């Protein structure tokens, strides 16, 4: 290999690597990330798919099977357990519920729980 080839090769390698790195970075940010709004939708969808809606209203405080969750994060305490409202305590409810609600510890991973909690904050 000669010196002119080296220049061409180096330039080629630098350009190819830079492009791939930037493209993959952009792909990750734009395609994969559930950005802002999309994140809320994902949370709402998950709330529905997981079956929370079967036992909880989201637009009132009336009890269905479990307590209604409207304005949940604007309250001082959680409706059933009376614990202070916090992400931590809601997560705790999902992992090891207070009384009769089924546990979702196996069904939801941490990221999904966060999505749902973020959604509950918007109610």
């Amino acid at each position, binding site marked *: *290999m*000669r*010196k*002119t*080839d*080296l220049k061409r*090769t*180096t330039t*080629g*390698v*630098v350009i*190819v*690597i830079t492009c*791939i*790195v*930037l493209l*993959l*970075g*952009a*792909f*990750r*940010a*734009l395609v*994969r*990330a*559930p*950005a*802002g709004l999309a994140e809320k939708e994902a949370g709402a969808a998950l709330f529905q798919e997981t079956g929370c809606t079967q036992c909880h209203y989201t637009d009132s405080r009336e009890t269905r099977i479990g307590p209604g969750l409207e304005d949940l994060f604007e309250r001082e305490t959680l409706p059933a357990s009376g614990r202070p409202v916090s992400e931590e305590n809601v997560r705790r409810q999902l992992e090891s519920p207070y009384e009769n609600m089924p546990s979702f510890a196996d069904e939801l991973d941490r*990221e999904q729980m966060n999505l749902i909690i973020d959604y509950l904050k918007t109610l």
Partner: protein
Amino acid sequence: MGGALLRIILYAAVVVLPVAAAAFLGESSPSVLHEAARSMALAGFMILVLQVVLAARIKWIERAFGFDILIRFHKHMAVFAVLLLLAHPLLLALSGGGWRLLIGLDLPWYIYAGKAALVLLALNVLASLYQDRLRLKFEQWRSLHAFTAPLVIVLAFTHSWVAGDDLETASLRTIWLVMLCLAVPVFAYHRFFRPLRLKQRAFRVVEVRPEAEDVHTVKLAPPEGEEIPDYLPGQFHFVTFYRGRGLPVEEHHWTISSSPTEKGFISSTIKNLGDFTSTIWMTKTGDRAAVHGAFGRFSYALHLEEKDLVFLAGGIGITPLMSMLRHMRDTGDTRSVLLLYANRNEDQIVFQKELSEIEAGGRPALEVVHVLSRPGEIWQGETGHIDRDRILEHCGELKGKVFYVCGPPAMRQSVVTGLRELGVPDRAVRLEIFSFLD
């Protein structure tokens, strides 16, 4: 060339591997800048680790490119890595990290580890690029390099392992560990185990012969029962002399001036250039020397189909060409070779007698033209330098000829420019760029 391309693609693929893994498997954030910053750091780290592999004189890699080209690629990639890794904190700051990340003092220790890695890396690259201007001796630079390079990698590894969100995923942790398991042994082998092994099997100096003013040929023979490693005429090797007597022990590379057809010994013809080479004349028969070879692609043996060669040599640059001429002589080769050989004066011409013997022998069909820039009064031959006009005058038809150029930088430069002006295509010009640092 196919093999070279394959290796280059492999290199690029390894560099972007963690970026791809993170893009598909890692957590993502909606900020393009943030993701670009992370990706650049991942690729930059991979380049750093692969630097170790590029520099370790691994034959499988070297073979396809030649050592001089490979080491230059290593250098270019270092600059690229610095740019990628500098962009990493800048983009992180821009994408929401804030300037605190860059100038703040109350940062966790692993951020400092990353900063230290970056600063050391930049200093290391600057020292390598400006070794000359900093008046670093080759050996000093080498020790510095061998010390800072692994330190940079260890710091970068720690920083990314602790600070990097992506490094929480199993796939990236695996890649990181694999790279570390690759780099550490390669580095240790290259810096410690191979030198040790070569020292144990050191060659013996069997002759030190003065050839011309300030030029000596050192002949080395392998230890009992061992063979000389295969080499091509025109290749070079690394030699470390163990001479005792308070003489420096440093590894340097020299062209092999003997031909593989000459059995039982291997020789280098070395000129006193004022550095380590000023101690060569003190080498004695019986001294030991660790030999690591052979490298380089400056050899007509890789292009046997080319029958019409022009050798352009300046001073001690004759050595690889001499190796090739000896090889042609010993194999009864009939190709035609025109040698233009530039020196300052008569006393500096190396191999004068042997060259005229080969010329008289007719194999190869050799024509030697000596060109002296400051000849004595009785000089009958040509005076001046090897330039465009002289090449044209002696070659006549340039088409179909292949040029081998070896000599000091100024000579090399003017010859290459001359050939270009004459319309000789780059692919018909073969160069030995002997210093790794210019």
